[in-house]
């Protein structure tokens, strides 16, 4: 892999910066723990000043004073706009269509953005038992945009999922349009190699930019299907000095998620 420390930032840092820019103008965002949490906090300080951080633990409008270590960290409760029961959060906020954007990830993703967080192997005799859906299945259906952050590897970017926990695009745009869901399937995927969108006509993941130093061969070598590449594929802008300063000094000073 060609990304080196010489570039002055880590793979995590360019993933965070690229993802945060994808939140430009977003309002109500369902946040996950780990990288998505830093991404949302960075976006709130840069491209999405009005971003409301929503956590499935029942928090709307969180203002965490420290880096939350789980989606139920007490720092999310103190100073929040509202704390709701989980029924209210899922029914009135998510199912009713108030959530603009949400982050999902998984052990496996396919070319249509379907996600597996349930098992590797067969369901009845799994090789690896993963956590399961949590809120992911309904988030995938109801959040208006889904952003995925995952490291890229052939074992996770697969031709066929072992289990479809959360639905993505079907591959048939007419079918997708007739679903009547608030959500429209994943809209972007950010990996340690590049960024992807989804093609309107085919619903397929499409390489939009590669991070500096990454080649198409690198991308192909870590993907389980023949990658679809945009005609005008470009280079991901590297993190700016200000983005790096915010990540390193304010959001994750001990480098828990970013090293």
């Amino acid at each position, binding site marked *: 892999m060609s990304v080196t420390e010489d570039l002055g930032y880590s793979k995590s840092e360019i993933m965070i910066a690229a993802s945060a820019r994808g939140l430009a103008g977003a309002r109500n965002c369902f946040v996950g*723990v*780990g990288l998505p949490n830093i991404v949302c906090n960075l976006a709130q300080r840069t491209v999405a000043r009005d971003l409301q951080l929503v956590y*499935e*633990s*029942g*928090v709307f409008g969180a203002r965490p004073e420290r880096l939350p*270590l*789980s*989606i*139920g*960290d*007490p720092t*999310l*409760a*103190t*100073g929040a706009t509202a*704390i*709701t*029961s*989980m*029924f209210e959060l*899922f*029914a009135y906020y*998510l*199912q009713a269509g108030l959530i603009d954007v949400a982050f999902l990830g998984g052990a496996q993703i396919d070319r249509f953005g379907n996600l597996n967080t*349930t098992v590797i192997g067969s*369901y009845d005799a*799994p*090789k*690896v*038992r*993963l*956590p*399961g*859906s*949590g*809120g*992911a*299945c*309904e988030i995938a*259906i*109801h959040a208006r945009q889904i952003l995925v952050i995952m490291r890229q590897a052939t074992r996770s970017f697969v031709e066929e999922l072992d*289990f*479809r*926990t*959360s*639905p993505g695009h*079907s591959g048939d745009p007419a079918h997708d349009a007739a*679903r*009547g*869901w608030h959500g429209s399937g994943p809209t972007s995927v950010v990996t340690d190699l590049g960024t992807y969108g989804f093609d309107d006509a085919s619903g397929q993941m499409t390489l939009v930019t590669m991070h500096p130093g990454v080649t198409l061969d690198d991308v192909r070598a870590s993907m389980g299907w023949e990658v679809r590449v945009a005609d005008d594929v470009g280079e991901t802008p590297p993190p700016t000095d200000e983005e790096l300063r915010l990540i390193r000094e304010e959001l994750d000073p001990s480098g828990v998620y970013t090293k």
Partner: protein
Amino acid sequence: MSSKVATMRDAVADLVRDGDTVAIEGFTHLICFAAGHEIIRQRKRDLTLARMTPDVIYDQMVAGGVARKLIFSWLGNPGVGSLHAIRRRIEDHDPGPLEIEEYSHFGMVCRYVAGASNLPFFPIRSYFESDIPSVNPRIVPMRSPYDGEEVYVVPPLRPDVTVVHAQRADESGDAQIWGLLGCQKEAAFAADRVIVVCEEIVEEPVIRRDPNRTVIPGVVVDAVVEEPFACHPSFAQGYYDRDNPFYLEWDRIARDPETLETWLKEWVYDLSSHADYVEKWGAAHWDALRPGEALSGEVDYGRYA
């Protein structure tokens, strides 16, 4: 109202029976580990354990041999990784198989809502084009009788026993919670028997001064247990922080069955109560977990005499 105050030992002995469906709820916040430890200590057997997020507490209980089956929606060590004792049971049937029944978060919440509301099922817009219903036949597609729209329905969950932890409660079980609310209210109203554990038992007027904060009324509560630090290593908002190093440490402990067994012996079986557990950790540990102050201010309910 008469006092329902009991010790944890008596509450668990009287209200948790072999073969029961038990829900110890609390989403990251207010997870009553002390009740789980007492259930392990009393060697309850063949329990069906229900919880949205089984967390470290159910990993400990499964390792302690109390469980036959697990009902859940997210099976992990939050912010850390896997629950290894549960994974061994599922992946390797070691030391025996564990039956599972899984939902999504919204599905689990609505199972409790149906149970608490005396409804035969609850409709939600989820599970479309997911494989989850194919492995759980209790998640069923249904058409709306009004416009034919498709929804999925989930069945009510009515635990034999629900355990919830509250920051404070009075002697009759009126319990007040602040911070993350999870689905404790729904799980308590859905249950046949309810144990409320709290950081502090307070006088009834303290509850009556702020009735909006009462999440569970004593009318559905069978026993009230005062047990400070009962949620450790989870947290009680305003009382103590999550002990994150322990969650990380549990990953190491639970990877190896012998290490886990040694931990259970030292921290559960060889102790007679949660008070021993609190003492064993030592005062410095608890001091380090105490948060700074962030008072809510007060509202005026008005006096209408």
